[in-house]
């Protein structure tokens, strides 16, 4: 997780390329929705952040407090950003705003893939570039069978039957859903449902993928499947925003932000976050189990040289001489 700068080098992302080749035309070439990372003809566009938000405030109708306040965030091409915070700290609100699903109450500026999130048209347009996957796949699957579900977004965008067929087949292969293509979504396992939902989100070529606790309802295998798919997408250059309550999903991230009452109160690496125990506790987060055990050992007088965040690191630290 958490590599950066992949977009500028190496082959362009297959997901975006295929789609862009399908969709690119004289008009389409000017629109970021149609362009894979690294193929943007405009150098200025490439250096600009994908997401650029400053001084944003959001309040739900009738609420007494802001869900997001004084909120700043920049996300570059191909970045992997992990977002943590207590229940109610504004994470899901952020996912909805990034996806153009809610209107900011106010902001100095709020741009997503160059679209102005403060305007109705900007929010409609950004929905093409920014895909959002939510926690509960049952709320996101709409069609009678898996392949129809994956085609749903493309159909709404008016893709031709031929292009749509090819794109859906790609997605079925990509997410190992070929054997399930005719199955009713509600009869799938949790992991299969979430992969179907992910395939549907990504069938439309995206520049940013926002995942709101995508593994919360999955068993270990389903969770590993989804995380592996996300990691592969990132390696291909897609920018990822992963919102999670699972502290072991944070381990290894280059860039983590932590929210508290709608504001970013921490930004740094996973290792930096977990090293600040007081902050972790205040934000109602936790350490991954190996780190928590190391802290408990320290309280009993056995101090480990480094804070381990994985079981492998813990075993190394335990093996090192005191």
């Amino acid at each position, binding site marked *: 997780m958490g590599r950066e700068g992949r977009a500028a080098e190496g082959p362009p992302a297959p997901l975006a390329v295929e789609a862009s080749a399908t969709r690119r035309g004289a008009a389409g070439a000017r629109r970021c929705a149609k362009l894979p990372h690294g193929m943007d003809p405009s150098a200025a566009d490439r250096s600009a952040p994908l997401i650029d938000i400053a001084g944003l405030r959001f309040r739900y109708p009738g609420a007494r407090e802001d869900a997001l306040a004084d909120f700043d965030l920049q996300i570059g091409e191909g970045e992997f950003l992990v977002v943590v915070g207590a*229940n109610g700290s504004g994470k899901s609100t952020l996912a909805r705003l990034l996806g153009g699903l809610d209107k900011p109450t106010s902001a100095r500026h709020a741009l997503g893939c160059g679209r102005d999130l403060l305007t109705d048209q900007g929010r409609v347009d950004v929905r093409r570039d920014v895909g959002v996957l939510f926690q509960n796949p049952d709320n996101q699957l709409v069609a009678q069978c898996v392949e129809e579900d994956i085609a749903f977004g493309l159909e709404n965008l008016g893709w031709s039957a031929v292009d749509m067929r090819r794109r859906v087949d790609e997605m079925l292969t990509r997410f190992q859903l070929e054997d399930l293509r005719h199955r009713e979504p509600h009869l799938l396992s949790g992991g299969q449902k979430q992969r179907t939902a992910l395939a549907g989100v990504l069938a439309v070529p995206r520049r940013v993928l926002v995942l709101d606790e995508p593994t919360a309802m*999955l068993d270990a295998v389903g969770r590993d499947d989804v995380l592996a798919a996300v990691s592969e997408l990132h390696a291909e250059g897609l920018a990822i925003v992963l919102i999670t309550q699972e502290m072991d999903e944070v381990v290894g991230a280059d860039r983590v932000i932590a929210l508290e009452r709608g504001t970013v109160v921490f930004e740094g690496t996973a290792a930096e976050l977990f090293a600040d125990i007081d902050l972790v506790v205040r934000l*109602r987060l936790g350490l991954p189990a190996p780190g928590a055990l190391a802290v*408990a*050992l320290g309280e009993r*007088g056995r101090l480990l040289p480094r804070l381990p965040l994985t079981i492998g690191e813990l075993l190394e630290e335990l093996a090192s001489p005191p």
Partner: protein
Amino acid sequence: MSAQGPAPRQGSTTVGASLACRRVSFSYSEGGASVPALRDVSFSVPAGDAMALIGASGSGKSTLLQVIRGLDEPEAGAVVLDGVEPGAAGYAERQREVGLVFQTPEVQLFAATAREDVAFGPRRLGWSEPDVADAVARAFELVGLPQAVYADRHPYSLSGGEARRLALAGALAMRPRLVLLDEPFVSLDPGSRRDLVAILERLRADGITLLLVTHDVDLAWRLCEQRLVLAEGRVAAAGLWDFAGDDARLLAANRLREPFLVELWRRLAYAPGQAPRTLEEAAKALA
């Protein structure tokens, strides 16, 4: 429970109720076809014990909770509560002593205030107002929500963790002797999970029997001495954990991994069957 108020405890020897399922089968209908969800499910939980109910999604875990609670009638077999057979005198009362906390129960909060929400169940049982007030106060206390702060709040104004605890309070207000929980930790932040673990440990200390559906094997291992593994509606294993034996393989076969502390013990070449339940115990052993 009778219309006069909470049932006195003196009729039973323990606070918790024992549970036994005897060859329970259940199917639901799907587009005209009958899809088996539970097949010949047999297991028992002694009064006051905690059992983790684990298995892949779709293995029948939530269905089993519904059947035990009596929301669905088994096609075959019997759910024996506190030693009382279905149809025998007192069975309906025993069923009312089973509390079921649904997955994301906070979506079912509906009253105008937190207090009214928690009071709903006891009122429906016909308890007198003083008894209802008592039960509500105790339930708020049990889940760690100070009544003075929360009672008049609108349920929708609560954070996710608070709303989950309020929903649990609604179940606990009816003084259940057996509590069924369906994935209670899902989508809670780590701090709220720690709070909920403390609440469940307190229920255990009070002697209440727990059946806990979770895919969090670390918390299952910490909270429960027993486990029931369901696979495609059948019992793959029931009884005490057995990591000295086959449990690691059994979990892997059911899309789960072994608990962190069991893996750690195994990799440290200690007996995995002796792995500690809590990080504190592990630290004590390793310090």
